[in-house]
């Protein structure tokens, strides 16, 4: 994609529009996203895709988070990228990812269970990684048990028995790719919750003036802004590293998801504190952001999980390697 602002303008317009129709049926919401080819963002042009970069993916997924978009755009982008890389067929309709797999392959057939599948109930294809293979599952072969996360986003369980799969060798880590997706969505949702809080603080009058005039609020919102800034910068850098390392930016993904997780407490509590009672209602538009932030903090790795992984990584390399590694990975 040569013109990033064309892409982000299109995404902002569409996602903003769709977020206003968040209770419409999935098929109605998903059709324009697919029509605009967002799921093909990372698929090379030669393979019929959009030929975008990981930086483009950050910009798009940040906007999906910003609008609390109730759609698996990130999952679809990653699934299509993986399928096309593996030479497996892209479906008509939604391809999503299954980060958690139990079971095994026998003679190229899968028996087992995939859990926490985003929009599994709506998917035409589910992509999973098992025994060093990328497998392409067909949900019509499965019994589907519907679940949802804290923010009512579908996280389904699909059970397969002796199901035919298409497969290709792969060493990809779906859990890390999921964390990468969430880090961009969290960046967008943090900025949106901040923007809403600032707008509300400038509007709401108490004690004869907008509450945004009070220094206590200003200082709290400044801290919120710092956290939002950190998450955005970390997310963007992790996607840049994903571009550099072909999707496998272990250190950066871990650091970005961890930093994003760490910011969510301050972001959500400040947003709700500024909004007062109205922000606590079902009717008001803050909770689609804050409930997603709470849900996403636990998805694809908790603070403890990622800090343990990251700690082990840097400890194994040793103190003397820390700085040289940090600089080497970011130098052009």
């Amino acid at each position, binding site marked *: 994609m040569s013109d990033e602002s064309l892409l982000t303008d299109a995404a*902002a*317009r569409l996602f*903003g529009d769709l977020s206003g129709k968040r209770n419409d049926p999935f098929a109605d919401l998903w059709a324009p996203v697919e029509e605009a080819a967002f799921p093909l963002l990372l698929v090379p042009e030669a393979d019929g895709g959009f030929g975008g970069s990981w930086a483009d993916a950050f910009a798009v997924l940040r*906007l999906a988070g910003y609008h609390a978009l109730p759609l698996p755009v990130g999952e679809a982008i990653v699934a299509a990228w993986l399928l096309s890389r593996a030479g497996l067929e892209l479906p008509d309709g939604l391809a999503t990812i299954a980060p958690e797999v139990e079971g095994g392959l026998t003679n190229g057939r899968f028996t087992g269970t995939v859990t926490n599948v985003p929009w599994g109930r709506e998917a035409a294809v589910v992509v999973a990684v098992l025994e060093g293979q990328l497998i392409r599952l067909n949900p019509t072969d499965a019994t589907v048990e519907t679940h949802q996360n804290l923010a009512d986003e579908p996280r389904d369980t699909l059970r397969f028995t002796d199901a035919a799969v298409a497969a290709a060798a792969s060493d990809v880590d779906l859990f890390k790719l999921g964390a990468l997706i969430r880090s961009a969505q969290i960046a967008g949702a943090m*900025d*949106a919750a*901040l*923007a809403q809080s*600032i707008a509300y*603080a*400038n509007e709401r009058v108490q004690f004869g003036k907008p509450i*945004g*005039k009070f*220094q206590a*609020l*200003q*200082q709290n*919102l*400044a*801290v919120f*802004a*710092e956290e*939002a*800034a*950190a998450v*955005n*910068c*970390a997310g*963007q*850098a992790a996607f*840049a590293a994903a571009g550099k390392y072909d999707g496998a930016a272990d*250190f*950066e993904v871990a*650091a*970005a998801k*961890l*930093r994003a997780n*760490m910011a969510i407490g301050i972001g959500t509590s400040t947003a709700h504190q500024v909004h007062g009672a109205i922000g606590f209602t079902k009717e008001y538009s803050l909770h689609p952001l804050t409930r997603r932030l709470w849900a996403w903090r636990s998805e694809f790795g908790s603070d*403890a999980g*990622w*800090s*343990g*992984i*990251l*700690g*082990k*990584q*840097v*400890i*194994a390399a*040793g*103190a003397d390697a*820390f*700085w040289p590694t*940090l*600089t*080497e990975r*970011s*130098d*052009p």
Partner: protein
Amino acid sequence: MTQPIQTFRVSPFAPPPGAAGLRDEIRAFIKQHMPPTEAPQRANSWAVGNREFSRALGKAGYIGMIWPKRYGGHERHPLERYIVLEELLAAGAPVGMHWIADRQTGPLILRYGTEAQKMKFLPRIAAGELYGCIGMSEPGTGSDLASVRIRAIRDGDGWRVSGQKVWTTNAHNAGLMIALFRTGEPGGRHEGLSQFLVDLTDPAVTVRPIIDLAGGHDFNEVFFDDLFIPGDMIAGTEGEGWKQVTAELSLERSGPERYISCFALFLELMRHAGPNPDAAMTALIGRLSAELWTLRQMSMSTAAQLAAGNDPMLEAAIVKDLGNTFEQELPRLVQAAVDLDLSGNTDLARLTALLLQITPSFSLRGGTREILRGIIARNLGLR
């Protein structure tokens, strides 16, 4: 529709080709020239001065890197300078002697100074021989900088000054002060302030140390006793001092020194933890790594903004406040995680003890936390 806000403009850090080579060069230089230092000196090393090391850096072309060659500079790219600075700081090299001159004094002269001032001062700064300090605070004038009271009164073609500056970092080493004095009517605010280049070797100037709570000497009181400043030593335009001061603040706030001053303690914590620490220590090291990496990205992005000629006021304030918060948390987290005898002799104990005591100053110098958060709030559209 309104464009979704993005608080922090993120710019890619794109130095000219050869960045990795430059990194190797400065690492080799550090290896060869950095004097043996005790662990505590490797923390906050931009407050640790060493004349010999500064001269060696000057000679090798690592001071005034981005200035024109005719003033002793080296016409390098600003992001090349950034690489050199972060390497020096990460190594804990003693760069305190020339730090302010390279970061603020030189750039101010370059931007606002006369040709004669540039020729007179910049080559000596770039050589690592002339050091600087910034005379802003006065008794009664701290964060409220516009309340500066000392007046520079016209005397022939020059000026006369009597009064006292305070909290002046590095004045005891510096030959040159950039001083903010009032040239307009008494009682003014932002108007009527001017900047001057003050020769600190003048007998009418007295510098007295202020020893900090840890026994260190960074701060000074500086007294002017009927000091005569020649007319050609005004810096920039008479009455434009406030504008000149605030235009330079982003340079001071977003550099690598704002998150990397305590890096020596992080490394020492890793050494203390060894190859097989428990889960809590592993998680702590992981968390600190993520924060360090993020702050570095933010600082580099802001450097790229500056290099592109923008004034990232908001981004710089965010980097400084977040960096300060991280650096103040680090020694506290180490203290909480490790059983330490703080009066003990291990490197970890000495670094922790020092940084517990001196990090409170990090959110005072260069703009207090409250001022910075006020700037951030204003830039967000509050106030």
